[in-house]
């Protein structure tokens, strides 16, 4: 790689890394081009050389966040895991990325289509593992209700974290209860 190309690559990475940090603080939609150029210490013109639009960077960032969360999930999960352990691993990876995941949840419906798709694909990956851990032959409900209930509950607490857990990670505070509640629900949905 020649020097100019290398510099260009470095600037692109700098914009991207700083953007992730800013998104985790302010969200995707509230972060302006000004915030992004200031945090990376570059000019507006230089920003647009790398990303044609503000949305292009949001999409790229969310695709990478989705991949990274799922990759981390795959590192920790294994096929033989019990439902309890799969739920625990899921909460662990979300907690590791809680600041930015909060904005995926709260801003999700308002993000560009490609970004929404990347979030959906992440959830699809997680659901695949949860499905392996629930014996749906024995449950009255179809599997997707289990997954959506788990995710719906988790996202509700995250969205309202200021009310549920103003002082610390909402996942840290509720992780044991979330798992206990979900296991009770799963058990109650099994055929006699």
């Amino acid at each position, binding site marked *: 790689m020649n020097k100019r190309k290398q510099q260009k690559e470095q600037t692109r990475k700098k914009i991207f890394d700083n953007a*992730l940090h800013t998104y985790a603080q302010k969200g995707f939609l509230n972060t302006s081009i000004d915030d992004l150029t200031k945090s990376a210490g570059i000019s507006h013109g230089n920003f647009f050389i790398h990303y044609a639009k503000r949305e292009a960077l949001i999409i790229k960032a969310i695709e990478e966040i989705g*991949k990274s969360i799922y*990759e981390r999930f*795959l590192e920790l999960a294994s096929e033989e895991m019990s439902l309890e352990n799969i739920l625990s691993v899921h909460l662990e990876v979300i907690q590791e990325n809680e600041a930015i995941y909060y904005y995926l949840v709260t801003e999700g419906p308002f993000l560009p289509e490609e970004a929404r798709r990347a979030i*959906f694909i992440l959830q699809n990956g997680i659901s695949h593992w949860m*499905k392996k851990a629930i014996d749906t032959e024995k449950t009255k409900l179809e599997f*997707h209700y289990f*997954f*959506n209930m788990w995710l719906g509950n988790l996202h509700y607490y995250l969205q309202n974290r200021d009310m549920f857990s103003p002082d610390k990670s909402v996942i840290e505070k509720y992780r044991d209860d979330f798992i206990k509640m979900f296991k009770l629900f799963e058990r109650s949905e099994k055929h006699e």
Partner: protein
Amino acid sequence: MSSQCISCGSCGMPLIKASDFSGGDVTHKLCAWCGDSEDHLKVTMEEVVEDCAQGFIEKQGLDGEAARKMALKYVTSLPAWKGNENEL
């Protein structure tokens, strides 16, 4: 942030164990369902889209038409089918 997760270039399934890869060869780019022992596609794009849509319905409860649209966009973003969005 790394993005080294290896996944099938045709359907996006994560490739973890050797048996997940076509021909059981970890240097291959396709999964055992999409690729033959030489890592050539053995499925059509339509089959991959339908399978993917079915997964979205079963695992996340999507409406059938929405699942198919999502699957088409997703599958045509993967290397094996990139740019083929209008082919179905």
